[in-house]
């Protein structure tokens, strides 16, 4: 008779829920993605990313229209190649965004995922629910991956649309840097290839950012560490006597995106830079898991 109180309260939920010790992973991941996408800064960054191909396209259309754009002197070669060749635009925009805004976007997501949650006191709530520490990393990784994929998709899709509408080109075809012409289908395939490759590179950045995020409760530390790290990589890569370092630097393979504009498609640059990114990814995830298993909530 005396255990009645406990029994009745528990019986208000289903039997599966009454015995399990952690919430279903799908529900956690869905809640995480919803949270990430409602965060104002995520939306602002996505809008800014969408503006990159638009600004690039409008700029090219205004200064060097078809026929008039040799574009030499200012601007990288890739951007110059966009003139009169609209489907190059998404690839050029992805390359441009990868230098700063895309890493910033995923670093922000990673910074908020652990350091930001800790600063708000909400990490404690998740650990007390309880979301197991391993699951917490999975849940957070899902949110960061969602941001990375979405960010690249925004640049690629807006880039394709802007390229076709504003810049235009030889009727839905792409002229490669090698001078050959690709049909619309193959051109879009090349854009998708670069987008996928960019996501892989970004996930490497995100994994490192998440690892830093696991150690601090100051989101700014994460941003400073990751963006500072990228700048240091850039400086190291520019020093000729440190050439032996090149294979270790994540950023040294980032020029490989332009390979997608060559014909036939050279894959070794894309493959080696993806492999390097995977090493960073594994290291970042391993450190994150190791740290989160020990971290105070």
């Amino acid at each position: 008779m005396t255990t009645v109180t406990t029994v009745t309260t528990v019986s208000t939920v289903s039997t599966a829920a009454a015995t399990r010790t952690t919430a279903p992973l799908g529900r956690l991941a869905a809640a995480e993605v919803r949270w990430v996408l409602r965060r104002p800064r995520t939306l602002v960054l996505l809008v800014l990313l969408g503006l990159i191909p638009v600004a690039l396209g409008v700029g090219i259309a205004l200064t060097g229209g078809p026929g008039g754009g040799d574009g030499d002197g200012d601007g990288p070669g890739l951007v110059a190649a966009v003139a009169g060749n609209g489907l190059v635009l998404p690839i050029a925009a992805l390359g441009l965004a990868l230098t700063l805004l895309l890493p910033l976007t995923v670093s922000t997501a990673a910074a908020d995922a652990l350091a930001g949650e800790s600063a708000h006191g909400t990490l404690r709530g998740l650990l007390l629910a309880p979301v197991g520490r391993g699951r917490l990393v999975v849940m957070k990784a899902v949110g960061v991956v969602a941001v990375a994929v979405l960010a690249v998709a925004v640049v690629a899709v807006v880039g394709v649309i802007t390229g076709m509408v504003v810049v235009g080109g030889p009727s839905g075809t792409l002229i490669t840097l090698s001078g050959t012409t690709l049909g619309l289908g193959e051109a879009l395939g090349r854009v998708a290839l670069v987008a996928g490759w960019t996501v892989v590179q970004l996930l490497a950045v995100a994994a490192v950012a998440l690892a830093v995020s696991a150690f601090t409760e100051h989101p700014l530390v994460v941003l400073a560490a990751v963006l500072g790290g990228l700048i240091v990589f850039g400086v190291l890569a520019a020093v000729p006597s440190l050439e032996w370092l090149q294979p270790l630097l994540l950023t040294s393979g980032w020029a490989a995106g332009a390979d997608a504009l060559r014909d036939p498609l050279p894959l070794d640059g894309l493959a080696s830079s993806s492999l390097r990114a995977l090493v960073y990814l594994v290291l970042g995830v391993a450190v994150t898991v190791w740290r989160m298993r020990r971290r105070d909530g």
Partner: protein
Amino acid sequence: MTAATSTPPTEAAASRPDAVAARVRGLRKTFGSTVAIDDVDLDVPAGAVLGMLGPNGSGKTTLIRMLLGLTRPTAGTVELLGHGGDDLAAALPDVGALVEGPGFHPFLSGRDNLLRCAAAEPRLDGDLRAPVDAALERVGLADAARRRYRGYSLGMKQRLGLAAALLVPRRLVVLDEPTNGLDPAGTRDVRRVVADLRDAGATVLLSSHLLAEVEAVCTHVAVLQTGTLLVSGELRALLDADAGGLVVSTPDVDDAILALREAGAPSYRAEGGVAVPPGSLEAPEIVAALVGAGVAVWEVHRRRAHLEELFARLTEEDA
């Protein structure tokens, strides 16, 4: 320094009189050279409302954080609802907690914040909106539920934190300074919530620096100072042990003092009558002596110690 496991007050707990909701043994936590918690043994009897008292920085929050597995102890063991060691997290679905203030995201509404908490609750299934709305109603936040957390007052934030702890029926609820920033109505609401939890058979662990608050709602107390547990046990027993003698209300003060002196009990004039310090005669003998001497006795009561005096005595003794 060990806790008195006395008869728990509620029915649910009475079925398992030896049951403890939480138990720590030899618990110790150091941060560098600072000792935050020093060799604490504490039992929280099932069904009890235990008030944890202590000055700022006495280690209340550190102890609670270790109890919930948020901080690893330097030494010692923690057991929560029968789960301990690496299995401690298995107790957490049945534990609601408000620790170190409410933690929520400012850009979401109170309700959306709670929905996010609800998604992580193992005990919830299906539609999460019903339990969320019920919890909001329970803490009096239904009207402000759709406003952004950013705009909440301190008291509203605290209420939302309480709602998160109450999303699911709990067996143990841990509230760290729950009345922080609350107005008198809010304080009353917290008191009501704690009483409801106790009536439902839940165990409540409450830390506070408001002694009146603890005295009003708690059945047990534990007093911490500089990381050491000074005393713990049933509140009434502790207060009785600390109580003074008898207070006799009578108009015939002089006759009463005289009669008591003849009976062998020293007494002195007090407001409305005489006071008899403890240690001489028992209460029935005192009443018999007075009535035998023809002294009019309106009322005799034992002078109740207040938690405040007890607390002051304990914390000043050791200071």
